[in-house]
């Protein structure tokens, strides 16, 4: 019975909670206390006296008691070492990711971006917190909501926006689009819901096979968590002790279906059954960092896989064609934006801890904005790929290993490949 009650408590639309607790202090809404893990983005504490003057001197912050929920797992340390520099960088990164997504939103509305475009506005803390906990030699794979991850892994804003615009200098040379981006230690950008999870297990498998000590994070959404192959991947990962973190980004809606309308068990961190799990406040970039840091050590120690659940929230619709208001209330979105925003959360902490003043933050905002604007302008100036057979038919197979020719729409358009040496590319993801 417990399982029937727990998920409801967790997934109950926020609007119901509003009646139960009309009085809410900013940044600590009563509504989130209904969920087992807080989504308060500013729940981490630090003693003012512990905070050093120097920007690069480490100090300890204490995460909220409600930052984690564990399943068959000792919780990570609630204390996290950081520096003022890192906190500022985290802030800057989240602002930059959001700025980039907003630019994509604008370009899409200007009809400059074609097809699909899934934005991660509201979920920035996951991509940013994770990147601050891992190395470039670690590996990440995710689904189609991938712009922020691609950027944090090292993709430039211009290459990502260029890709969205279908430009030759885009991150995938205009061949991938919004959903397919590869970068340092980053395997995309995958369009088939859930299919990236076993692929991620395979990346972890390869690292183990090659004796590398790095960790692989395989991300998927609450919607994908019901795919059969996710469980298949869990099974093999546990069986073979693969160093991987299966990380569910629970943004409460799989497309337009609320978690409790799709999942018999909405405790996604328990979905691994025989794999220890951790539920994390995915709105707090520090909690995300602490969790991934812990998982990286756990995997490196040879303890096998973990199942994570980042509790987060998507402000926008599922994709650009979804206003995102038919299956949830505007009030719910507004409440999350105004009280649980990951950027506002870290901003509050930066001010509270005296890391920097409002002026510096404004400067950083400006800088991020200017950088993104500049990059977007550069992307818009990029040329589209030449509409030639050479470009159309390139890279279907590894260069030099192509068939003699591939067929066009009519035989006259057949493309004959030049005779050349096989040139196997070195993937940037293979670090």
């Amino acid at each position: 019975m417990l399982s029937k009650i727990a998920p409801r408590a967790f997934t109950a639309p926020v609007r119901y909670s509003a009646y139960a607790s009309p009085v809410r202090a900013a940044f600590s809404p009563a509504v989130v206390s209904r969920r087992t893990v807080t989504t308060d983005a500013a729940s981490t504490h630090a003693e003012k006296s512990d905070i050093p003057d120097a920007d690069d001197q480490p100090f300890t912050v204490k995460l909220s008691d409600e930052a984690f929920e564990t399943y068959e797992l000792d919780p990570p340390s609630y204390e996290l070492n950081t520096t003022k520099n890192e906190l500022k960088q985290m802030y800057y990164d989240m602002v930059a990711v959001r700025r980039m997504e907003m630019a994509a939103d604008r370009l899409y509305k200007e009809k400059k971006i074609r097809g699909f475009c899934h934005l991660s506005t509201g979920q920035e803390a996951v991509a940013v917190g994770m990147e601050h906990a891992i190395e470039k030699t670690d590996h990440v794979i995710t689904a189609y909501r991938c712009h922020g991850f691609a950027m944090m892994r090292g993709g430039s804003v211009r290459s990502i926006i260029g890709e969205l615009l279908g430009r030759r200098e885009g991150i995938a040379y205009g061949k991938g689009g919004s959903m397919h981006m590869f970068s340092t230690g980053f395997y995309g950008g995958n369009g088939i819901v859930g299919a990236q999870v076993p692929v991620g297990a395979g990346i972890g498998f390869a690292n183990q096979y090659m004796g590398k000590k790095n960790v692989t994070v395989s991300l998927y959404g609450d919607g994908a968590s019901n795919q059969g192959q996710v469980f298949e991947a869990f099974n093999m990962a546990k069986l073979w002790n693969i160093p991987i973190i299966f990380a569910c980004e629970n943004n409460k809606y799989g497309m337009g279906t609320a978690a409790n309308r799709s999942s018999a068990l909405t405790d996604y961190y328990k979905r691994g059954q025989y794999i220890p799990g951790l539920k994390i406040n995915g709105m707090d970039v520090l909690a995300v960092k602490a969790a991934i840091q812990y998982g990286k050590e756990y995997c490196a120690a040879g303890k096998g896989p973990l199942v994570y659940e980042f509790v987060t929230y998507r402000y926008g619709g599922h994709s650009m064609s979804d206003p995102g208001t038919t299956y949830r209330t505007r009030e719910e979105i507004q409440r999350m934006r105004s009280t649980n925003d990951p950027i506002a959360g870290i901003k509050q902490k930066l001010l509270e801890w005296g890391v920097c003043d409002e002026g510096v933050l404004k400067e950083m905002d400006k800088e991020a904005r200017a950088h993104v604007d500049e990059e977007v302008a550069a992307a818009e100036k990029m040329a589209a790929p030449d509409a030639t057979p050479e470009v159309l038919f390139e890279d279907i197979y590894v260069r030099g290993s192509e068939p003699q020719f591939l067929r066009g729409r009519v035989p006259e358009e057949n493309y004959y490949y030049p005779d050349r040496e096989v040139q196997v590319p070195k993937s940037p993801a293979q670090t």
Partner: protein
Amino acid sequence: MVGQRLLRPAAQLLRSSPSALPRCSFQKVSAPAAASRWRTYATPSGTKEMTVRDALNEAMAEEMEKNDKVFVLGEEVAQYNGAYKVTKGLLDRFGEKRVIDSPITESGFAGLTVGAALAGLHPVCEFMTFNFAMQAIDQIINSAAKTHYMSGGIQPCNITFRGPNGFASGVGAQHSQDYSAWYGSIPGLKVVAPYSAEDAKGLLKAAIRDPNPVCVLENELLYGLSFPMSVEAQSDDFVIPFGKAKIERPGKDITIVTLSRCVGQSLVAAEILKSKYGVEAEVINLRSIKPLDVEAIVKSVKKTGHMMAVESGFPSFGVGAEIIALTAEYAFDYLDAPPIRVTGAEVPTPYAQKLEEMAFPSEQLIADYAAKLLKV
């Protein structure tokens, strides 16, 4: 109009008395007999007999020896020695790190091996049969075949999917399907279908070395058949290039384009045609479905003026259909009669033997249909 076009004279002739066509008897006249009969014409010294199973095994063992990035993963490949014993002895030789028994989880382990390939390994992913790979076809197509293109050519995926495909004996509808056309239609994949032991070794080794995803569609009924292996093929550097068909039997009167197990059947049919009608059929073993050797077909049709495709898959949108379309596109002017095809019947494979026999090409049917086309 449509009716008229369908009933062109040659087609009419071919349609005239379908009931007169004899029922197949492929289980009596077996491919191996045919193959060795044919092969005995030229057996240079130094050749040795080898089964297709052993050739596949040798191919994997040699490639694993050469490159420690190569590993084999699949159901029952290790301790059980392979459901069809193709991976026999590999566990003992290479250890459990590189020969891995997978749980029965096609979608999962296909995805896992694809991930391992993306991360730089060269997996050999064995499907117990390609019928089960239908559960994993998304990973093969979307995750493996398309990634290189979608990444703008920066992310390779060197993986080999292999296992028995197509017709087996008495295993019913869900275990008898031929997926040549399914995989053959996907840009980004390479697809091969070995017939002989040399084919098996050379193509599998080439597949493992190829930097792209490759499907090696084997056939269960061929596993146990022995073929001569030339001295060259016995070398551990023997590979067969993709996209090159092999003329298994030269002829001047009709071109029979075929693949996999049907090559053996077509060779027997060619012998029947010769002994009964004095007709010389040229039998082309495609070896590779994607890329497909159109040039070999055109060259042969130029010579013979007649083309017959023989395959055991479902007829609609199949390999035979593609071969006929290509022949029409590239060699229409050389044809003296419409190109024709012998395929599996449009029927989920039945279990009862006599019914099953009616569902697949037989040597006799191939010979008779060719004779009909040639009006002999």
